[in-house]
């Protein structure tokens, strides 16, 4: 493992629901939700164990004809930016103890990482309490400044 290629792992704080071709993730603290499609589904499953990005990309490229290495690396960067992937904790098992990377789809589909923030404002203002006194959720108080 190179120093600039740290072990990464999925953010277990997120609530996740996996479908055959899409994964939906919720970050209930930040009020964000995400959709992973195409090869991003394979990335999420691969990082169920702590692994280095290059290890995962190499494995997926070896298994899938036409896999786009740059697109996979960009997707990993995006997942890190959105905190879907985090640096692995020091207690995570080393490479010798990890199971193999899960099988990926036979045909490479470009990874899709979509972030949805349409409900984030409500979380930012504390949706349990800081809402319009007369209307309630999801109306914000009139005095509350716009998030942007």
């Amino acid at each position, binding site marked *: 493992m190179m120093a600039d290629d740290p072990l990464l792992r999925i953010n277990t704080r997120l*609530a996740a*629901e996996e479908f055959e071709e899409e994964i*939906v993730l919720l970050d209930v603290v930040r009020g964000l939700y995400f959709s992973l499609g195409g090869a991003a589904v394979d990335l999420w499953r691969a990082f169920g164990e702590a692994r280095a990005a290059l290890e995962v990309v190499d494995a997926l490229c070896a298994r899938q004809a036409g896999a786009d290495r740059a697109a996979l690396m960009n997707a990993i960067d995006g997942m890190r930016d959105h905190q879907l992937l985090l640096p692995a904790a020091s207690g995570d098992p080393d490479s010798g103890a990890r199971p193999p990377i899960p099988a990926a789809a036979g045909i490479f589909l470009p990874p899709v990482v979509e972030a949805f923030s349409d409900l984030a404002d409500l979380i930012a203002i504390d949706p349990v309490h800081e809402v319009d006194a007369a209307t309630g959720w999801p109306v914000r108080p009139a005095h509350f400044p716009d998030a942007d």
Partner: protein
Amino acid sequence: MRTEPVPRDPSAAAAAVSHDRSTAWLLDVLADAVAGMQTSLCWFSAHALGDRVFTVAANDASAAALLTRCLLPANLQPAVAPHLRVFVCAGSAAPFVRPPAWNLPRTDLRHLENLHLDPAGRVSASYDPARRCWMILDLSTRRALLWIADAGDLPVWETVAPFRQFLQWSLAGTALSVVHGGAVVHARHAVLLVGPSGSGKSTTVAACLQAGLGACGDDLVVVDRSARDWRVHALHDSIKLLPNPAVAIPSRLRDAPWGACGDKRFVRYSDAAPGLLVRTAPLRALLHCRVAKNPASRLVPVAPAEMLKAIGPPTVFFLRGREAHILGEVSALVRTLPGLRLELGGDPAEAAALLKNWLENCPYGERDA
């Protein structure tokens, strides 16, 4: 010799201990408040939560009347323990003391939201600093406390959809879940209308009522997978209507007494006409409402993941706490029932006619004779 596991991170272990102390403190608050109001209870009522019954006891009859006016009455069977016992404690004057302020040490990110959720799922609590109001649920004793300093501070929206957090938290681990959506019923079938605020849910429910369909709720309903078929249960006896020149308030609701809830009116179905609110019905499909540019409304099949994105986040972010249960239940729902996008044209009456025809010829499931 038994050896205790060595914590990896001593600070995490200390935070866990502190978190547990907060849980214990909240349990004490609940126990003390309930014990302190035993001699002054002046209200008792029983209400439906799906096929279950929960009770409300209070020391302030006017507050209890407000908080229960939009709940569905139920009969409490002597031999059956209620699903939940809610205690409403209002007032700061003797013999009551003013509810304490939130003073929990920050041992969890959720504390930023004034939410405390113990990891074991036993205790869930929220605090409203503006109204000095605690909501604490102890699942192990199935008791819940709403403790507010001044019942006059109860906001209207809290009384139109009361106890929704308690009720959702209490359903963790059951086959029932509260979801954000409305439901319309016709020919013994129901469809669930979902989508964010402004997507046309309530307008469509109102148009369906005008067209002679029934409703199971327009904002929050209970979904239930305990039987062979999914069912939807009404939760609140209220509908919120936005006065809108494009959508006349249904004549069946127009003459009923109404109250203001922000810029909306709320009406109790039971004040308008018997039978408008259908208490329960088999659920046949999920409809993701979306205002579209096409002139005529239409139904378009969608994938389960799209439906999850339509139901899951609004429900989770609305009700807060115990999100894994909510998302798991919603996920089971979208994986089981067909999902359709209801692309709403410009005429709500035409959308109601579309739904009426779809329900009369429902392609999914047997009729619940």
